């Protein structure tokens, strides 16, 4: 072999990109770029959250099923003592080391899960209506407005739904299930004839 090829990060949904681009009109479904992510586990003492938030350039969500913005990324609350912290700037390894170092003094820890999930972005009118075909939770903006997130099922697959706005949601899904989730969304996106007002 001559010139060593370099290892390249491949998007797990590369093979579905074409299908998504071929979707007719709104809502659109696009692939989120790959970002670094850690699973942060720490007991939710107010002081701890304050300190971590400050260090990460934001505030960690104090309530269940909510997300906040932090420097270069998001903090999504997954459970009483669990957060998903993303960063578009740091490398996965650096991100794990950094958050881990911040959490350690509080008895917490961070584990790199950057490649565990992949993100889809759904934008445009009817996006909640589209999700309602496969997702059972109450997606009415009043119940799931901007700033909320929820771990639930899309069809048979576990996903993390993130509300960016009324017509703007993200779906995070484990990479091995991602193809299925895209196929399900595309299946409905191409075929919706809902006579219902958008939820």
């Amino acid at each position, binding site marked *: *072999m001559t010139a060593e090829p370099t290892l390249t990060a491949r998007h797990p949904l590369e093979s579905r990109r074409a299908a998504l681009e071929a979707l007719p009109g709104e809502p659109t479904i696009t692939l989120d770029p790959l970002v670094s992510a850690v699973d942060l586990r720490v007991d939710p003492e107010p002081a701890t959250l304050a300190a971590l938030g400050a260090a990460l350039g934001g505030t960690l969500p104090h309530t269940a099923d909510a997300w906040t913005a932090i420097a270069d990324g998001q903090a999504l609350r997954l459970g009483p003592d669990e957060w998903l912290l993303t960063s578009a700037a740091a490398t996965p390894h650096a991100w794990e080391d950094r958050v881990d170092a911040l959490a350690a003094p509080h008895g917490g820890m961070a584990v*790199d899960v950057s490649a565990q999930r992949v993100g889809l972005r759904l934008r445009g009118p009817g996006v909640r209506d589209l999700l309602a075909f496969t997702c059972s939770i109450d997606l009415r903006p009043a119940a799931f407005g901007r700033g909320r997130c929820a771990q639930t099922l899309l069809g048979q697959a576990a996903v993390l739904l993130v509300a960016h706005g009324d017509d703007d949601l993200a779906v995070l899904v484990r990479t*091995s299930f991602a*193809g299925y989730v895209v196929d399900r969304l595309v299946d409905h996106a191409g075929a919706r004839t809902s006579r*219902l*007002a958008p939820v």
Partner: protein
Amino acid sequence: MTRVEGYGRIDRTRTVSFTFDGVPYTGHPGDTVASALLAHGVTTLGTSVRLGRPRGVVGSWTEDPGGLVQVEEPFPEPMLLATTLEVTDGLVARGVAGRGRLAQVADTARYDHRHVHCDVLVVGAGPAGLVAARAAARAGQDVVLVDDRPTPGGTLTGTETVDGRPATEFVDAVVAELAAAPHVTHLQATTAFGHYDDGFVLALERHGETTGRSARQRVHRIRAGRVVVAAGAIERPIVLEDNDRPGVMLASAARDLLHRHGVLVGREVVVFTVDDAAYAAALDLHGAGAAVRVVDGRAQAPAGWAARCAAAGVPVEAGTDVRGTLGTDRVRAVLVGETRREVPCDLLLVSGGWNPTAHLFSHVGGPLAFDDELVGFRPAAALPGTTVVGAANGTFALADVLREAGGADAPSAEPEVITPRRTLWRTPGDPARQFVDIARDATVADVARAVGAGMTSVEHVKRYTTIGTAHDQGKTSGVVASGITAELLGRPVGALGTTTFRPPYTPVPFAALAGRDRGDLYDPVRTTPVHHHHVAAGAVFEDVGMWKRARYYPHPGEDMATAVLRECAAVRRSVGVMDGSTLGKIDVRGPDAAVLLDHLYTNLMSTLKVGRVRYGVMCGDDGMVLDDGTVLRLAEDRFLVTTTTGNAAHVLDRMEDWLQTEWPHLRVRLTSVTEQWSILAVAGPRSRDVVGRVFADVDVSNDAFGFMTWQDTALDGVPVRLARISFSGELAFEVSVASWYAADLWVRLLEAGAEHGITPYGTETMHVLRAEKGYPIIGQDTDGTVTPQDLGMSWVVSRKKPDFVGKRSFARPLNSDPGRKHLVSLLPTDAATTLPEGSQVVAFTDRDPEQHADRGVLPPPPVPMLGHVTSSYRSAELGRPFALALVRGGRDRLGEVVGVPVGDQLVAARIGGTVLVDPEGARRDG
């Protein structure tokens, strides 16, 4: 033609053509097959299921027990009601004799499901439902209003007035208001068919035949804060002789057909009733040009109605009854009173009162009780989250209905006096000719027979006579059957009760319930980041849980056996590479991580040194093997646990279970990293060269990189973990990398191994190689009844630990039974037969005890079984087939010959130890 001008909500400007029983007919948009056929004077639609008697339309909607049709075009669908089937151009249908026909081919129409959340769900868009929906909408609530008919309004015909104007105008006004209101969803042609816990209602929306990708039918899965049942009521017939003859209908049905479809079903009409509502039908049909006479089974006709009839010239006869009908295919006369006076007519309308449509109330356990005034079963208690209003609640006077449903801003209607109904299930006559359920040809005689046989429960009578089991589920016959049974038993019908209402309210196509969970959407197809490379290499895949795993990579012309022999040889003699990314991976972290693992694994994990790897086995509380895998100690307080592909979720769930509910004091956190890390296994004597070449900076020599150790390194700046783990007995490395890079790394390994002929291998080869070493596959060589000791793995069961999950069960009497099954190898003595996996193991009986044969005789059953073959393959290395088996006392029978029945032969096989290749383990370090 029996179509009358000025009536009906059909579009007379357009005509549609359809075929029924081979004869072409026309109808109008808005027509049903029933209304269109009746408009053409066709009254017989089919024949009955048992007696072959003519059957016609009795009701005008889903309650109809008579008018069953089979659709042939555009696509065969069985057992639909002519009264609910809209006519469309090209529709081809035929009457049926009680049984439908399924298509021979798959249905390509699309069906889907949609989740809906609302504050209030209103079922029924009749007067009660419309007013209830309006009230909720005005209160600013999210409202969903569903109604099963194509158009709203329910029983309102326009002859009534609401707020002083024709009811139909009122309906249009409310519908418009709802359409304009935000957060109101109004769906017609949508049937709420099932009601479950916590305000969960399923509704089927029908779009008619569709093409392409728009749904033909959609199931709405509705979660409502409050459910308002305003589903109306169903009129009940009165049983009399030959009441199954076409031309006998419910009074409400004839009125409905007139006002919805402009069809006047009879010219000479007798109305037999014990209830006021039928008078409206009598007057409406009279007004449309029919000659009508009323026979009121009550002692006196209601004064108000009698006066209106007199004014209209409709004769009313009270205090008598109708005993039977005459005619051949259609009623030509009825027999009135004790004298059975013959009164000519072409239509007999009956009204025995009303059954509230409280099905959705009953589905969730709402109690129904018999109301003597109503003469019917109605909701008898409050149910949290569910309210029943209007006729469904036994309220019939329009003014009362509106008040009950609308509350404060209820509209007004003129008051009515409803004169008491009479309880009349049947009139005197020959019970063998009195039909209780015309859909099942069940008569009063059948009911009498059931009671005579000793049956005292309506459930028994229903099962004995099959009353109420047809397509209509007894909507009109159920309560009548209860009434007649009660009479025969001499007990009050209330005490007898009625049969339970069970979902669905009306039949729902299987495909609609299946929705989109079809084909690859039935269950997720899980794939690894390297999947497309396997596809490109022509891999044959197998389903392991939801995963697609490459099973083998056939070259052109190769079958599985040949391909696997080639792959095995490559690994044993040079090098192969396998995608092991589907293995479950769990990051176990925290000061007490080792304590948790010591609890869950049978062997010690706390003694594992950082940088080393240990194989571990997990058992259930019952001591049976659950899972196995390797454990890497990443740091004092951190382990990486791998599980089998199929058990990954289960093992994590179990760990969380212990951690959260049993030992919450442990400071440990679990994170699934199954998709985070991809594992590529490089195995074979040449694996060191390949790994050494790709990771030039790593000293892969045995001294620097020993067996069951791991090292971190990087490739092009990407972190990579290498581990000396072997599942084949050969020198082997597992290469772990963040999944983003796995596909590229796979290619890099193939390139680096090219000179050694590196061979991608699949799960089948992996299974053969591990079996040659006697390594069990949990779930294949075990079945939930096997202990580590049974597997000959006592070495993996710690004697030092005071306790671990499963330990106590090892001490149960049965676990020390010498007859327990042990995992052993079986070598067919002919060195040629591949024993089918799953084959049973029995004692070997020679044909001729003198000369030992490879084939024996199988004695006649019962033949005691010693165990079974769990794994069986051809071995490239051994040049022969071999098998693993669980055999009673197997380890105490090494060298013995046992028999394995294969087809009609008994194959001799010798029991041996499980390690068949490289017993001394010389190859492990290359």
